[in-house]
């Protein structure tokens, strides 16, 4: 197990700089997810960690040692690739055993380790098959087996579940997390899927255009998003934004928006007259007969336990997830309110949290 430390990391391809000043630290045993849309630099950062890309600036430390110029094989890492990158001409057994054979581990020790990994990953019946004879989920597990047998001090995952169907993805998510709970190997996991990030991570690093937007636990990034961007990216039903101006009403700060006057927490660093953006998560919108947000229901989607209401508000579409105890009909007026502590306020200019 090892710590991983990024110290003012930058990356350029030729004259094009795609990453600058990335610094954070991953503790031993931590499961860290790098989250962001495609092109944000998360995969590049992971590949730099693996040694598949050079580090243009800064220091990359694994286990306290600077590894910028260390060959991938000497970094004591193992990587699971997005498209698995299995060796197509080797059987499953040899795929998993390859790194050990290369390291000249004794044959019976290789056999023991491969079989142990296969057992954990339910691959025992498939050891004599070729990768092309396996399903996507099985290939995924072979790739993990290949990483596991090396007993590395850091696991790197590059969007490992993106080629699987939804059900298998959910299943593999739990398997990977359980595996981590058992092995406790420091893990860096890249994904653009915020659900994967929320469910698996100890710590989420949200990235945007080669920079870190926020680092925090899943709860932290969900409850106190550092920027409008993070608020928008995290959460499965997209957050509702509305522009507005800060006013002081009834001794408590509030924001006048096209959707009405929305109360915000006194603690928020806002000044009267300031242009801001308010964000309310669909799950935090409460149906209230005298609520400030007046909307007209456009679509009522019953999702079993909850009802998702897609409504038209003065500031545009407003989404709410409410319990199904009340009957809703399309076309009728619904009014919402939100508790001040659930209203996220961002500066209209910088889009940072206030």
């Amino acid at each position, binding site marked *: 197990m090892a710590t991983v430390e990024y110290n003012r990391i930058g990356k350029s391809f030729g004259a094009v700089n795609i990453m600058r000043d990335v610094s954070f630290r991953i503790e031993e045993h931590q499961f860290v997810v790098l989250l962001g849309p495609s092109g944000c630099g998360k995969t590049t950062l992971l590949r730099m960690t693996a040694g598949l890309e050079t580090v243009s600036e800064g220091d990359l430390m694994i286990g306290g040692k600077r590894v910028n110029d260390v060959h*991938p*094989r000497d970094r004591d890492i193992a*990587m699971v*690739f997005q498209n*698995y990158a299995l*060796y197509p001409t080797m059987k499953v057994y040899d795929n998993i055993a*390859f790194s050990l054979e*290369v390291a000249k581990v004794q044959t019976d020790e290789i056999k023991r380790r491969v079989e142990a990994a296969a057992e954990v990953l339910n691959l025992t019946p498939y050891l004599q098959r070729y990768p092309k004879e396996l399903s996507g989920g099985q290939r995924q597990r072979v790739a993990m087996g*290949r990483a596991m047998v*090396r007993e590395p001090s850091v696991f790197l995952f590059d969007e490992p579940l993106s080629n699987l169907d939804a059900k298998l993805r959910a299943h593999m998510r739990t398997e990977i997390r359980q595996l981590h709970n058992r092995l406790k190997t420091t893990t860096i996991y890249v994904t653009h899927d915020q659900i994967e990030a929320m469910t698996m991570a100890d710590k989420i690093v949200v990235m945007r255009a080669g920079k870190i937007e926020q680092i925090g636990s899943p709860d932290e990034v969900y409850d106190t998003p550092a920027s409008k961007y993070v608020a928008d990216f995290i959460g499965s039903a997209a957050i509702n934004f509305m522009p507005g101006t800060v006013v002081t009403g009834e001794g408590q700060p509030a924001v006048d928006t096209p959707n009405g006057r929305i109360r915000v927490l006194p603690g928020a660093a806002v000044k009267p007259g300031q242009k801001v953006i308010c964000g309310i998560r669909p799950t935090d919108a409460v149906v209230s007969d005298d609520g400030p947000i007046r909307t007209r229901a456009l679509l009522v989607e019953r999702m079993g336990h909850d009802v998702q209401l897609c409504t038209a508000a003065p500031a545009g579409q407003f989404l709410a997830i409410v319990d199904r105890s009340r009957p809703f009909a399309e076309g009728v007026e619904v009014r919402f309110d939100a508790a001040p502590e659930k209203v996220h306020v961002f500066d209209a200019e910088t889009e940072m949290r206030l």
Partner: protein
Amino acid sequence: MAVAQVKRIAISDSPIPWLAPLVALLVVFTIYPLFYNIWLSFHEYFPRKRAIQFVGMQNWQQLWEDTRFWSSLGVTFVYFAVALVFEIVLGMAIALLLDAELPGFGGLRAILSLTLVIPPAIAGMMFLLMEDAQFGVLTYILNSLGLLDKTTPILATSSTALAGVLVAEIWQWTPFMVLIFMAGLRSLPAEPYEAAMIDGASAFQMFRRLTLPMMSKVIAVAVLLRGIDLFRVFDYVFVMTSGGPGTATYTLSLYAWQQTFSFIKWGYGATLSLVSLAIIMVLANIFIRVFKVRW
């Protein structure tokens, strides 16, 4: 009415109208000559009588006892094996080298294919001049390096003549292998190599465990194409040595050609080329089975 008929053929489900032209070509230019050849191998042309007469198994019997045939078969095999090994190994080495994206390599790759534009007979002539005992540049270089005795003319010495011909062959056809191998290398996925890099494999281990197995189909096809061509070698030996000195470079094709066209022994010439065909077919089939080549 003619238009209606054409239309009916064109829209019919029958494959015959589509296959007919090709089948006709095959019949006229391949199948008929093949059977004529087989028929001819049981006959012989007698110039004095100006007639082809049935001779039964005589040609085949003669073949069995013909030391010239056996020696030409031996030369052909040596030529085939040496050229194939050199072309594969050199071709692969150069392909791996040129696969690197270095400045100027694009131009090199283009230049490489130029040897294939030269007709083999002309290439043979070029090497004939270069290996000339008096003024050949290759002779001069080998002499200067002390690799060749000044009194040894390359193409007129039994021990060096075949090597002299092989140089031309390998020079001209290695680039063909390079092009095929390079196309194969280009189509290999990058990710397994990255995985192998992390797994700690050396460049040689990656080549042996990843590149070679992944390239096996490409290599097999290249070997098959080149192998068939090599076995019927004619042009280089014809222009460079005419089979000499003695029988040192006398290949099977050359022998069949000589029997047919110089000695007007059509029947025996046909027999020799049939043997050549049979050997190629057997070798190719064994190869296809062993290496599980699928087209």
